[in-house]
């Protein structure tokens, strides 16, 4: 709490000014809707994962307006969203809350201000890296990457624990061990990579990150 109070004092000049709100509006998907929140709290009350979050959407929106940049972008809240869309359905001001949450997560990740080791963020990173290599998700490599993300020793333990499941999948022909070497690809891997690069370029240009 002491560090929070200190940073609050340091940032007092920027507090309750439009600076961070404007940054969010420029860089976050549907960020321009943040200012329309009327702080009714229906989203916070509707979220099935509400108690598990650091901050409810209501608080996140208020923090943005209060100029709490580091706290918002470092929050784990956006990463906990399961996209159930309860909040969007119920918001009386029709804010696309789920989209804003994912937009904030994405923005925080790209600035590398998102919480380190946050499991959702980690799995998302592994999934993305796995996908862009071949244009197809390699399930075996993805599972192994998950097992070994916390070091070799832990990886072996995880693998041993999941041994029976793995053998079962193998017997049912749901798991192909040959995937470990190379694995299947999409037809035009070069074209796929170009497509991803172009999409990133467009997005960066739109957000002024290029």
């Amino acid at each position, binding site marked *: 709490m002491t560090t929070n109070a200190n940073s*609050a004092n340091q940032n*007092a*000049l920027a*507090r*309750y*000014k*439009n600076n961070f*709100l404007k940054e969010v509006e420029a860089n976050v998907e549907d960020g321009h809707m943040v*200012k*329309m929140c*009327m*702080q009714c709290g229906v989203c916070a009350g509707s979220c099935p994962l509400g108690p598990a979050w650091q901050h409810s959407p*209501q*608080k996140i929106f*208020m*923090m943005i*307006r*209060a100029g709490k940049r580091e706290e918002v972008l470092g929050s784990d809240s956006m990463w906990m969203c399961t996209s159930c869309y309860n909040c969007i359905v119920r918001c009386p*001001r029709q804010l696309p809350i789920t989209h804003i949450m994912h937009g904030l997560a994405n923005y925080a990740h790209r600035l590398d201000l998102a919480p380190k080791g946050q499991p959702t963020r980690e799995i998302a990173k592994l999934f993305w890296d796995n996908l862009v290599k071949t244009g197809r998700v390699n399930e075996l490599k993805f599972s192994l990457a998950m097992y070994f993300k916390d070091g070799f020793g832990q990886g072996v333990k995880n693998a041993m624990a999941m041994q029976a499941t793995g053998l079962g999948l193998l017997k049912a022909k749901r798991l192909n061990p040959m995937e470990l070497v190379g694995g299947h690809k999409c037809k035009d891997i070069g074209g796929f990579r170009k497509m991803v690069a172009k999409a990133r370029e467009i997005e960066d240009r739109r957000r002024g990150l290029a």
Partner: protein
Amino acid sequence: MADNKFAAYICSGCGIGDVLNVGALEKIAQKEGKMAMVKSHPFLCNAEGVQMIRDDVANEGVTHLCIAACSRRAKAEAFSFPTAAVARANLREGVIWVVAEGSDHDEIRQEMAEDYVRMGCAEVKKMIVPGGNVKESSSKRILVVGGGISGMTAALAAADAGYEVVIVEKSAALGGFARNLLKRVPFSGPYAEPQATGVEEMAARIGTHPRIKAHLNSTVAKTAGAPGRFQISVAQESGAVTEETVGAVVQATGFTTYDIARLPELGGGQANVVDQAGLEAMAKQANGGAIKRADGKEVKSVVFVQCAGQRDTTGTHLAYCSGHCCATSIKQAMYFKDQNPDIDTVVMYQDLRVPGMGEDFYRSAQQKGVIFTKGKAGKVSGGDNCKVEFRDLILDEDTAADADLVVLATGQVPNAGVDLDVWTEINTKAEGGDEAAKQQRRDLEATSVLKLAYRQGPDMPQFKYGFADSHFICFPYETRRTGIYATGPVRRPMDMLQAQEDATGAALKAIQAVENAQQGRAAHPRAWDLSFPKARLEGCTQCKRCTVECPFGAIDEDEKRFPLFNEERCRRCGTCMGACPVRVISFENYSCDTVGSQIKAVNVPDEFEEKPRILILACENDAYPALDMAGIQRITYSAFVRAIPVRCLGSVNTIWITDALNSGYDGVMMMGCKKGDDYQCHFVKGSEMAHYRMSKIGDTLKQLGLEPERVQTQEVAITDNARVARLINEYVEQINEIGPSPMKGFG
């Protein structure tokens, strides 16, 4: 009396004839009621039945009618015979619909009906058709005190409806508070942008209106008289006095902003901390350009602190919400944003309240980038760099925001003139000869708005928080000074749109008042009533109870200290009649006798019959309708009660109670409206007066050797139909436990 002919008409429709012996009722009316003519009809309220009565009035010389059918509240148009006195015996809602079905109850049901017929016959014999008092010379002009939005709206509304209007404004120009605004909150869709106030146009229309006469730089120096004949002295700043005769008065004296000097904790009095009025002045000066502080610096960031000195629970500041301030701050934040979207504007609210279509206006401000934060400001420091320390109620932390300018949204304080409670205290001392009090009284009266020459004080009474008399829900413009209507923020906090609607309503009430005054009719709530109180002054003991207790200040004292009735100020509630210890005050159609004779007409069985009799005196405004509603919904109650409607519990004279108890009634139950701050009494103080009087009746009961429970007073709302039945049944049970009255057989 020789010319009077009494007739009773008994209806057997609506099932009355099925469960009651109508023939027996006819005999009662003839023998006991002493009616010269008695007729029954299977459907009295249809064209044929009504024609039968009309023919009897026209051809048979019938002057007094007792109609035994449904409640007096039903079929009022069918049973309207303007030249005849009419009493109604309530056999439908009062008997057959409320007494339990079945032959077990036949006897008591019939007894109840017979009593109501006896009562109706007894009442009508004491009634006189009110003659009315048409006053051809009555003035129909309307005085409007105050030339702000409310006053100008009322003046234009009345003048456009064809009435002459005199408007008195103390400053040099019309427009009031709104004249100092740059723009106003929008009144119509899309509710997105601040609008021009329109004050100049209104003032210009008033200036050229053929039926409006405006006195600027003027105040009211004296208001004397009554509706239809108010004499107003208008004093100009120069000292010149103009006399005006008007029929009604609209008081639209508006509000003053709460003094921010009283809010030092919120920076009141410090540099660059202003109230909303102060910001309007800055915005007007900027005239569309950058808004600058007193030191010439352009404002780049501004914080609006809502509820400043309002909704205060500590008792230091205003306890109420002024209603307009959230929308006003939104509008003012737009002044900045529209000029330069980069200016940081924060509205700090606890509950954002934007009545009407304000939610759209709020959204429009959010679109423009105004930041809204739910927080409670603890401390504001002014100066070159203002700081607002506050509790963020969403993030639940103490924090601070800095700004070039802080605007405090302070509340509306009504300009209602003299607090009569204070005045009365000083006046009592002054009348006792206290010289210091006399000076105090002069000083206090100098602050009066209306300077009424009434014995009850120079202004109208005030309610909670010093707002001028009015009833928030039931009768918003009515005050306790008949023909004088309070409107706009002087009677409750409101914004410009509400004030305009309010003022239009007040103008209509004023028009109604001048029209009724001319025809000799009462004002709300008995606006049709032509009767007025008459006093037999030879019997008066000059006790002054009537003058003091009249809720409307209708009664002055003449030079011989007798009561002097100002008929046009009278609302016909009868509180004076209830107050009079020697019973010299009466109305032609409502008097100690009309009710007293009904009480005595009831046949009270002796104590061995085990049939108690309980008198209900029910206020005709709420309690009697509630009893009727109980009947309409077939909610049953004891057949041992006999209900008599009264104009107001305030009109209940204690003689009725003693008469009833002396005649052997086992109990008396009074049902009136809710009293106190949240009163529902249509005559404001009548119900309270009755409760006060009954609290003192214990001694009388003791003298008679009776238990205090034999007299009960209840507060009843018009919606209490199930409750009245329950109250009656509980009371009958209670009376049964106490046992029969020892007075039986002596009456």
